[in-house]
């Protein structure tokens, strides 16, 4: 069973008077394996928040169908086992951190003593114990995110949605949040993380989907997404001939040709070795093969740029 499964979900927001339609999502199909850490990446306005809101029944889809934890999203009871940290959440400011957890935890099936224990545990986990009796309106942005995270976990969910959880949090806070998420994954929970910050997702996600303008552009493991673009800088000594550069093997793969180096794009190691063999038989002396590592960020920006005709985000 998939934790999340959508089929051709689309969303059109209608303007105030029925005009000015916004196609926030177009035929989006994705599936998230149970127990996995899924990252949804995309620039602002790509539709990341919209898909989560549809999955949680906060927004109605315009078309398509979706299942969460094996049940149709129209069944609100499935949310007993789901947690959610919205972006820019607003807790009742007159409640203390502890009261927020008690309030939202009240909707779960837990008994009062169970809930109390869970709240103590979560306040410890999120390092909010010393602020538990303070009103949330006195909290800093980082504390708000931490209490928000505790809130998302209060019902001990199997699946947890996080919308830009590290937004506005300092680097140490980010690391702490990341560690908490990885800890959740170790407990077998499914995590669905939205972010426009690629570096955040790259470090934690098993699978990543990149979306732009409501469409999935690319999907795969972090490894797949970064490795398909593998590039090498090859330095050499000797004269490089035109016929070598224009051969079937090399013409589409080598670039930036200088007298002592060129860059090579190789889909796999066999191709890399074939090029090296060809160079050797040309009588070139190979001095170095340095992989130019493409981060997800690079491939992300490149993808978005090619889709947008070169206009950067």
């Amino acid at each position, binding site marked *: 069973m998939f934790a999340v499964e959508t089929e051709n979900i689309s969303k059109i927001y209608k303007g105030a008077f029925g005009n000015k339609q916004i196609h926030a999502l177009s035929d989006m199909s994705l599936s998230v394996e149970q127990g996995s850490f899924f990252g949804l990446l995309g620039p602002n306005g790509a539709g990341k928040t919209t898909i989560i809101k549809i999955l949680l029944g906060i927004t109605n889809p315009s078309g398509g169908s979706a299942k969460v934890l094996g049940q149709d999203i129209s069944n609100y009871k499935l*949310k007993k086992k789901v947690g959610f940290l919205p972006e820019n959440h*607003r807790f009742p400011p007159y409640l203390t951190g502890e009261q927020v957890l008690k309030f939202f935890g009240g909707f779960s099936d837990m008994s009062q003593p169970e809930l109390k224990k869970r709240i103590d545990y979560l306040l410890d986990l999120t390092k909010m114990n010393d602020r538990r009796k303070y009103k949330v309106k006195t909290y800093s942005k980082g504390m708000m995110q931490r209490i928000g995270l505790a809130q998302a976990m209060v019902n001990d969910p199997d699946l947890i949605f996080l919308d830009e959880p590290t937004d506005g949090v300092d680097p140490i806070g980010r690391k702490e949040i990341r560690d908490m998420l990885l800890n959740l994954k170790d407990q077998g929970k499914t995590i669905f993380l939205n972010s426009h910050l690629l570096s955040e997702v790259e470090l934690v996600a098993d699978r990543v989907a990149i979306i732009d303008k409501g469409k999935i552009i690319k999907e795969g493991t972090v490894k797949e997404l970064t490795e398909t673009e593998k590039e090498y800088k090859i330095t050499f000594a000797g004269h490089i001939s035109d016929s070598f550069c224009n051969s079937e093997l090399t013409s589409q793969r080598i670039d930036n040709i200088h007298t002592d180096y060129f860059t090579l794009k190789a889909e796999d190691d066999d191709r890399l070795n074939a090029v090296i063999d060809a160079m050797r038989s040309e009588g070139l002396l190979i001095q170095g093969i340095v992989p130019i590592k493409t981060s997800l960020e690079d491939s992300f920006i490149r993808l978005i740029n090619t889709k947008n005709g070169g206009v950067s985000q």
Partner: protein
Amino acid sequence: MKNIWIIIKYTFREALAKKIMITFLILSALTIIGFGLAFSLMGDAAGIGSVSQPNASTPQSSTEIISAGVRFLEYGFVATLFVIGLFLSIFSTAGLVPDLLKKGNIDLFLSKPISKFELLCAKYLGGLAIVFVNIVFLVGSIWLMVGLKFSFWETSFLLSIASITFVFATLYALMTLLGILTKSPVLPIIISFLIVIVLNPLLAMRSMLYDLTDSSVVKGIFETFYYLIPQANEIVTISQDSIMGKADIVYTPIYTTAALMIVYLSLSFFFFKKKDF
């Protein structure tokens, strides 16, 4: 059911935290003090009783005269209490639904295992419960004061707790609908005040206005409004009549107002379900 209780409980807490409750109670207390001052200037109920029934042909016992006097007093209070009670209730509850719908807040609620129907029901009932508590305080205190001063307890006066709450419930259903459509308390407040302060008195005089004009358009407009807003005047009259012990009271306005409340609530649920947050 548990979900509804949690939300009602926290709506009370919200009202306490936003100082809605205390403001309501203070303003009610001021009203009560005002009534109290008016009493202290009055003579005894027997005097009022004889004034209220100048044409009483049969000689009456003194208790009958006191009872008549108290009823006459309370009869006069009902209309005032309706206006003050509604006024305070509108102010104290106008923000509840729009605040719930604020971005970042509604998302949290809807991500819990609670249906949209339950959520709106609970918020509506929570607002109503807050108003009910305050109206009990307002009307109850005045009833107590009258009773203590004249040693006469007219229980039918307490029915106005129910009738004020009922008229408010209908108004609040409309406020909820407008709150959902506009996500702001401004329009609900303006429209409710317009209803209580302008439309209701105007509609009370509509037969007089019809004498001034033959226009069927004007008549049509007034009749439409009459059925689109809670029939507060008629319900005040019903409350007054039951205090005076009138026999042949017509209860139709209660039914039409109840129907209107159901229509506004259904529309609220419909738009709440349809709306994206």
